[in-house]
């Protein structure tokens, strides 16, 4: 007859119990509820609602939604571009500078909108920005607005101001960005 220690027997029983419980525990799963919502979108290419037109010294790219303006030293209050509203909505305009090259030679470069009332949008004095964008300018149904520029330099070279013409639909946050580059020789 062999004598057994109770504590030892208990330990063996607990060990066996643990070994059986562990595999069962792996069957416990956790998860989250999940669903998806669908956005279906159709996107056609459409004809521009607002177009740019050359008045003078401007090159208009295909589809009339971007332009390059080239003017020389001594230009004064020259209408270079015309913006035409061909929609049935009121919009607002704003010119925003996003880059430039070699502007230190510009003693004065001022670009503004006008259709009678002037709104200065970009202003450089002695090579430094006084203004990199202007306030929102009303552009009602059937309206035409001009972009006008004055520029003077103190050295022979070429400067570039890269801008976006922001065309914002009134009372919304829907807007277009047209690229307009100004080159000053």
């Amino acid at each position: 007859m062999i004598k057994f220690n109770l504590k030892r027997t208990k330990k063996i029983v607990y060990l066996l119990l643990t070994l059986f419980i562990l595999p069962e525990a792996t069957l416990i799963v956790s998860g989250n509820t999940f669903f998806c919502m669908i956005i279906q979108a159709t996107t056609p290419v459409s004809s521009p609602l607002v177009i740019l037109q050359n008045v003078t010294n401007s090159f208009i790219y295909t589809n009339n939604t971007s332009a390059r303006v080239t003017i020389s030293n001594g230009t004064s209050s020259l209408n270079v571009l015309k913006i035409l509203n061909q929609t049935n909505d009121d919009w607002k305009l704003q010119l925003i500078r996003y880059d430039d090259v070699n502007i230190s030679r510009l003693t004065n470069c001022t670009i503004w909108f006008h259709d009678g009332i002037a709104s200065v949008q970009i202003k450089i004095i002695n090579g430094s920005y006084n203004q990199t964008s202007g306030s929102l300018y009303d552009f009602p149904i059937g309206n035409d607005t001009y972009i006008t520029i004055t520029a003077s330099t103190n050295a022979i070279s070429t400067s570039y101001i890269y801008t976006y013409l922001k065309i914002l639909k009134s009372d919304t946050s829907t807007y277009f960005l047209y690229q307009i580059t100004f080159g000053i020789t």
Partner: protein
Amino acid sequence: MKLNYKKSLKLITLLISALLIGTASAAIYYSLNISGTVTVAVTVCFGQGSDWPSGSQMGTGNTSVSLSLKAYPNTTLTYGQALKVNNTGGGTPSVKLRYISITNGTATVANFTFINIVLLDNLGAQMGYLNHTVSGNYFTLASSTDYKEMGIGEVWSIRIETKAEPDASAGNYVSLQIAVDVQE
């Protein structure tokens, strides 16, 4: 205390047998013990944004939407708030954008520059985006954003930006399908 070896062995054998029977029974029957209540509840849904594109349609229950977007040549068109994403439940679900499908591999695609879908939180901070840019006749696909947690009652929004190529022809169009996944 002294124990009988045979008795101890029998006791252990009995315990093991009981456990085996119990485990086996559980393995067979546990899948039958599922019970629950299913209720129809939508905790996150769409809403029309302030830049809701005209001609768009909201689906039943506001869990699907058909948007009528536009793209213009050589200009970026931004719908600042095309859609709202409303957390109407009392919890804090996580949401993400996931690409499903887009017109691809055809000459039509070459008319486009990009279509960008951006998820914004209630403060206007960007929570992820799917930007589908074009190379030749193909869109470079954006697969999925990371899950972001919405606060209780928060209203997030979706901004959409489109751009067509400078020489794009009017009338060409692509179709895009995106999922907003919600994990509660």
